[in-house]
């Protein structure tokens, strides 16, 4: 008996020891808690009475906090609270002033930006036009902005005063402003960057945004605190806490039990349930993404447009969208999302007609059907689509094997042109129809033109769209492009996506950003 009680004592001792040091990672600066400090470590659990801390659940941790660093979505979701771009996008994808207060075209390829005065970096220094020039060059050189800034002639561009930046383009390029909104082109301090190496900058941000870094708890959360010298009065709370919760179901649970105030990327089925929950709000807003079925144009059997059209006629997309996305978002009608600038509804559409599909296949020389493969990464929704596709294609005589590979391997296979039919998503992150150039121009890298599609006629149209500076004319050309690709079907659109965000009942001021990078500077408690 003695042994057992001894064991018990030991266990209790260990447990209390554990709880005593339960938060070694906790900041030593006193965090505001109401509980007695000896019994409970500061928790983000409900309810923190003095509500000045907004807890956000996101799916993954950022890679880095360098303003010109990697532009993956978790990084941007945190970083764009701390950094700002020259110009920004509002929730309806209009260009709005940010660091640049205003701008004007001097001629077709010269833009003069008036830089806002009194903008401070978090280290207290003031932002000057020279920092803008430095940031754009650095953004381009770091490589994370893709081709977005390539149109700028950096030799001729530069600061033309403390608060004036003159940008010279290599050729007239209408969508240049939306290109400047790309997250990795954020403004950094020239002096600060010059003083530190990349490894340091990845962890120690110094931006001009409304929040600054308080502490990064490796693998668990990032805490931001309001920047007092921000150039604008905001309604935002004092502190933002971004928690990394990888499982979508758990983010939904946390918002439901009140563990967090905002939960990003709620899955479709959870969205439906939370919409029926009176204790939670759900913000569902369109985003810029389109999930599509791609065809590898380098494979001979997929080069015939009749085959691609046959696949489209063979698919019954309506029930697919219902089954996989629970009716959220909308069925794919076009190869850019409806919220993208230049989107047109006046494009060829395909319905569900297996007979027509069979006919087209026969015309293309496959009267007895064909064999192919459907490739997807291990994303649950895309796997589901692939399985349904497999079934529906079988009905018209296309025998397709489903190949699910991990994302890293998928990229390699894509780059090596090994895929056949594949499922992917694309997001027109700058919100402009110019994304079509990246998607279908024959010289676009594989990251955009994933199917290696080649068509001289289309190339000419796309080039024309870039040179057109009059918005109305440009929209017309873009419409032609969309009509062309919907007829040729290098890809078949499946679904236009939504951002689904769970919000606590007392959260106010959240605005869905179609890009998925929600800006939280005006989010507060009721």
């Amino acid at each position, binding site marked *: *008996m003695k*042994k057992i009680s001894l064991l018990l004592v030991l266990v209790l001792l260990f447990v209390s020891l554990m709880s005593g040091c339960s938060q070694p990672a906790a900041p030593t600066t006193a965090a505001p808690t109401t509980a007695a400090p000896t019994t409970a470590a500061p928790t983000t659990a409900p309810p923190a009475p003095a509500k000045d801390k907004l807890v956000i659940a996101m799916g993954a941790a950022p890679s880095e906090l360098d303003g010109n660093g990697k532009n993956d979505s978790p990084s941007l979701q945190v970083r764009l609270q701390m950094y700002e771009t020259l110009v920004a996008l509002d929730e309806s994808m209009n260009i709005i002033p940010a660091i640049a207060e205003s701008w004007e075209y001097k001629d077709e390829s010269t833009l003069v930006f008036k830089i806002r005065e009194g903008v401070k970096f978090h280290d207290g220094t003031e932002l000057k036009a020279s920092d803008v020039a430095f940031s754009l060059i650095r953004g381009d050189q770091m490589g994370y902005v893709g081709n977005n800034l390539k149109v700028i002639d950096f030799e001729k561009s530069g600061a033309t005063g403390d608060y004036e930046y003159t940008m010279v383009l290599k050729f007239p390029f209408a969508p240049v402003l939306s290109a400047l909104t790309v997250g990795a082109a954020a403004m950094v301090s020239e002096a600060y960057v010059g003083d530190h190496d990349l490894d340091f900058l990845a962890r120690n941000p110094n931006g001009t945004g409304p929040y600054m870094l308080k502490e990064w708890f490796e693998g668990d959360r990032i805490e931001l605190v309001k920047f007092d010298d921000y150039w604008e009065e905001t309604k935002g709370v004092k502190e933002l806490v971004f928690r*990394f919760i990888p499982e979508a179901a758990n983010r939904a649970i946390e918002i439901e039990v009140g563990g967090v105030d905002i939960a990003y990327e709620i899955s479709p089925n959870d969205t439906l349930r939370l919409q029926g929950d009176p204790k939670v709000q759900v913000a569902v807003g369109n985003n810029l993404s389109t999930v599509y079925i791609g065809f590898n144009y380098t494979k001979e059997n997929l080069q015939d447009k009749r085959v691609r059209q046959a696949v489209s006629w063979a698919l019954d997309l309506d029930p697919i969208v219902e089954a996989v996305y629970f009716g959220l978002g909308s069925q794919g009608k076009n190869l850019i999302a409806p919220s993208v600038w230049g989107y047109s509804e006046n494009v060829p559409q395909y319905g569900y007609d297996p007979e027509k599909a069979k006919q087209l296949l026969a015309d293309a020389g496959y009267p007895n059907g064909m064999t192919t493969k459907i490739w997807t990464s291990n994303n649950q929704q895309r796997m589901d689509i692939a399985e349904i596709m497999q079934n529906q294609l079988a009905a018209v005589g296309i025998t397709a094997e489903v190949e699910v590979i991990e994302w890293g391997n998928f990229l390699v296979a894509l780059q090596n042109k090994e895929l056949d039919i594949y499922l992917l998503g694309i997001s027109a992150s700058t919100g402009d129809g110019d994304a079509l150039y990246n998607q279908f121009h024959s010289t676009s890298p594989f990251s955009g033109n994933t199917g290696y599609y080649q068509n001289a006629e289309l190339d000419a149209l796309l080039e024309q769209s870039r040179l057109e500076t009059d918005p109305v004319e440009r929209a017309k050309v873009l419409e032609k492009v969309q009509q062309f690709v919907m007829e040729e079907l290098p890809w078949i659109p499946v679904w236009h996506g939504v951002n689904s965000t769970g919000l606590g009942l007392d959260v106010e001021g959240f605005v869905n950003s179609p890009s998925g990078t929600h800006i939280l500077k005006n989010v507060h408690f009721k």
Partner: protein
Amino acid sequence: MYKYILKRLLMMVPVLLGVIMVIFIIIEITPGDPARIMLGESATEEAVARMREEMGLNRNIVVRFLDYVRGVVLRFDFGTSYRTKQPVIGEIISRFPTTFKLAGLTTIISVVMGISLGIVSATKQYTIFDSLATGIALFGVSIPNFWQGLMSIIIFSIWLRWLPASGSYGPEYWILPAATLGTSASAVIMRMTRSSLLEVIRQDYIRTARSKGQTEMKVIMYHGLKNALIPVLTVIGMQFGFLLGGSVLIESVFAIPGLGKYMIDAIGQRDFPVVQGGVLFLAITFSFVNLFVDILYSYLDPRIKSQYKRDSKETHKKDIRQKEVLNGKQAQ
């Protein structure tokens, strides 16, 4: 004894070199360009090529291997993460306390459950209690971890609202994950306790103690357990060692920033320095825990001590068998 420890430490060197080599080979055959994954799909080809050069990916595998080993040995440098650009060893060490805590709590739960169930089922062999105890313990082994974790979140966090659903911000946060892991680990300890106690009970000295008129309780607790627990201890040690490797699924389900999750993410993102450094770190930890357990074992059981001078391996037959059972379950 010191000679034995020294010998074991020396034996670790080729094994650890081998571990590095195995990981290098696996990484070499893994498709995926770290530079590309790091820069994102939209990065330009030139940027990717430059990054490859910068990361030293174009060098020969043998050169990289030797370079790595030199870094580890001379500077304790486990490399720099491709993704976060931070030293791998720092990131590992910052996650280690979390994993250590989860492993510790899990071990406590499984020891308490495992030993008590083991005693019940051994002393009441072939009765309903035996079946019941075995049944409870087996339940833990049979249920897939992540399912049990999700179910317990639904029950205890959503329905009952007793415990938080995810995170690691205080004692209450540890209960669900540790209990989930603990139930599966306890079965192994329970089994070991049962069979070891059954064996001991049949020994002469127990019979003697009984005949002296001591209560059954006393006999089991004083004489039986004392000896029966020695092999159990080894199993506990092994299990703790395995748990230090992190429990990937449970860390995912409960959003706990532990080592296991960190490593899995690194594999997915082709963050190879993290994979190399992490596996090496875990292998070192595991080897030391192993050694510690063996030493402890020899202290507790003097019969074995003498045999160490010849070959330590033979005495471990049973432990290894248990260890492998553990391995399968911990794999989750």
